């Protein structure tokens, strides 16, 4: 066997406790992608960070805005400059929070353990199209965040992602779920009790398709994990013969009855 392509890209991780201002998150993200990531990101414009351009010319960029001490906005753009989404992460004013920042050449995931209120997140990246060529289509940038910039929790469930559908950008429940016909929490464990982990795969509409979505790819360095795991817990998962990966479970800001409501992102 071999490590799957979507688990073969770069990944970096840092956990920062005691945060009381979202500027800290911006600063730590900057440090991670500019000084630790290999290949490194670039910052052509202050506050706008571009992922490394890969062999097929794919990249995305993110622009941070400190809207207030407690509100962090992030605008995600694809390689053509289309704004895929502008979403907000908020932290409470009543307590300090822990932020976990996951980055890599094809992904970013900011996951905040807010303690007194629901978790928050900002994430996005490029999809792995293998075994097809990585330039088989151009709808490969996805992203989302906890809130709209009007502080509304909409399209925030784990099944939602923003992508380019045909020629229109929007959020929909495009994440592949694994379940039975009428009950959602199924297939998460083997009958011996071992957890079953799944790739995070997305569907969207190709250019020219007005109604039909197709398989667009899978998210790098991310897995879907069964519910019941606490935000921040570390899980070790076999990813190839004799090889394991360590993943950290991220928070779910929106309650979801589906058994695969959680993401886990690679840290080692």
């Amino acid at each position, binding site marked *: 066997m071999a490590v799957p392509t979507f688990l073969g890209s770069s990944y970096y991780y840092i956990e920062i406790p005691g945060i009381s201002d979202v500027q800290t998150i911006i600063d730590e993200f900057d440090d991670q992608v500019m000084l630790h990531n290999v290949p490194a990101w670039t910052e052509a414009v202050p506050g706008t960070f571009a992922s490394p351009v890969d062999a097929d010319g794919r990249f995305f960029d993110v622009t941070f805005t400190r809207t207030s001490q407690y509100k962090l906005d992030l605008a995600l753009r694809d390689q053509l400059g289309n704004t895929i989404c502008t979403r907000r992460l908020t932290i409470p004013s009543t307590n300090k929070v822990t932020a976990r920042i996951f980055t890599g050449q094809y992904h970013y995931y900011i996951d905040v353990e807010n303690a007194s209120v629901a978790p928050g997140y900002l994430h996005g990246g490029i999809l792995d199209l293998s075994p097809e060529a990585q330039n088989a289509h151009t709808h490969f940038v996805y992203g989302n965040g906890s809130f709209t910039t009007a502080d509304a929790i909409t399209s925030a469930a784990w099944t939602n992602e923003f992508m380019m559908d045909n020629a229109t950008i929007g959020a929909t429940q495009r994440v592949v779920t694994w*379940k039975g016909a009428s009950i959602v929490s199924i*297939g998460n*464990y083997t009958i011996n009790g071992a957890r079953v982990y799944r790739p995070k795969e997305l569907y969207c509409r190709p250019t020219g398709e007005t109604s039909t979505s197709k398989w667009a790819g899978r998210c790098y360095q991310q897995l879907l994990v069964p519910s019941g795991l606490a935000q921040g817990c570390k899980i070790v998962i076999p990813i190839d013969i004799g090889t394991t990966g360590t993943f950290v479970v991220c928070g779910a800001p929106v309650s979801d009855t589906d058994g695969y409501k959680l993401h886990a992102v690679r840290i080692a």
Partner: protein
Amino acid sequence: MAVPTFLAGALNTDFRYKSTAVVVDVNTIISDLSGELVALGWTDASGVGTGPWTSPAHASGAFIVITATRISATRIAWIVKDHRGLLVNNDTDTRQDIEAVGSEVRYYANKFGCWVDSARVTPECWGCGIIDNSPETFGVPRSSYMASKGPRRNSDGSLINQALNAFYYLEVDGTSYISANSAFGQRNPAIATTVHSTFTGALLFCPFDVQYGVTALGFLQGRLFQTLTVDSTAGTFGAEFTVPIDTGVTGVFKVIGLTTISTWRVCARKS
């Protein structure tokens, strides 16, 4: 890489395919199936090709027993039992018809199960099998089985259990086999209209996952041997697909008569 366990094996040694063009009496189904199963190492209790047939025992001790009964020239009844003698298709029996003027019947047999497909104008498909739970140890904590709930039910012969998720299985701590339409493990986004292909049109093929359909905690039992699922738009009845199953290795799969659930259909190994 390696061929996945549930697709491993060689044609005519581990799995077989047969098609009989015009079957006018289900006795032909019985004798045809007997020939296919015995060639794969199943035992025929009658010794004359009328069954019951017992699969080869897996190393875990699991085996499956199929009994076929001619109800009439055009109707056959199936009974399936697991290695403990429990009735898998827990409805006395399940039934299947052929056309009075004759139907093509297709047989997909492997060491641990089979599909029998009556290619009527409205196809009627029946099947059963032991479930592959690799990479975990086969048979631990226990072997898992499935058997079609249809295509026709015993009580009135109505054709109502054609869907691919109409089958019997055993729940966690269950004492008798049950049927629940959530026992088929689907992979779908919630988007209304999807085609399970890449943007370039390459179809996605997935295992036929069997799960627990009632227990909310969610247990994956495993997958059926020599069986895949394919997008229902492309997967019309009888369509054949050459599917890569390992580096440099392909298998040919043919769509069987189970009806669509959530844009998926079932195809069984032909070669």
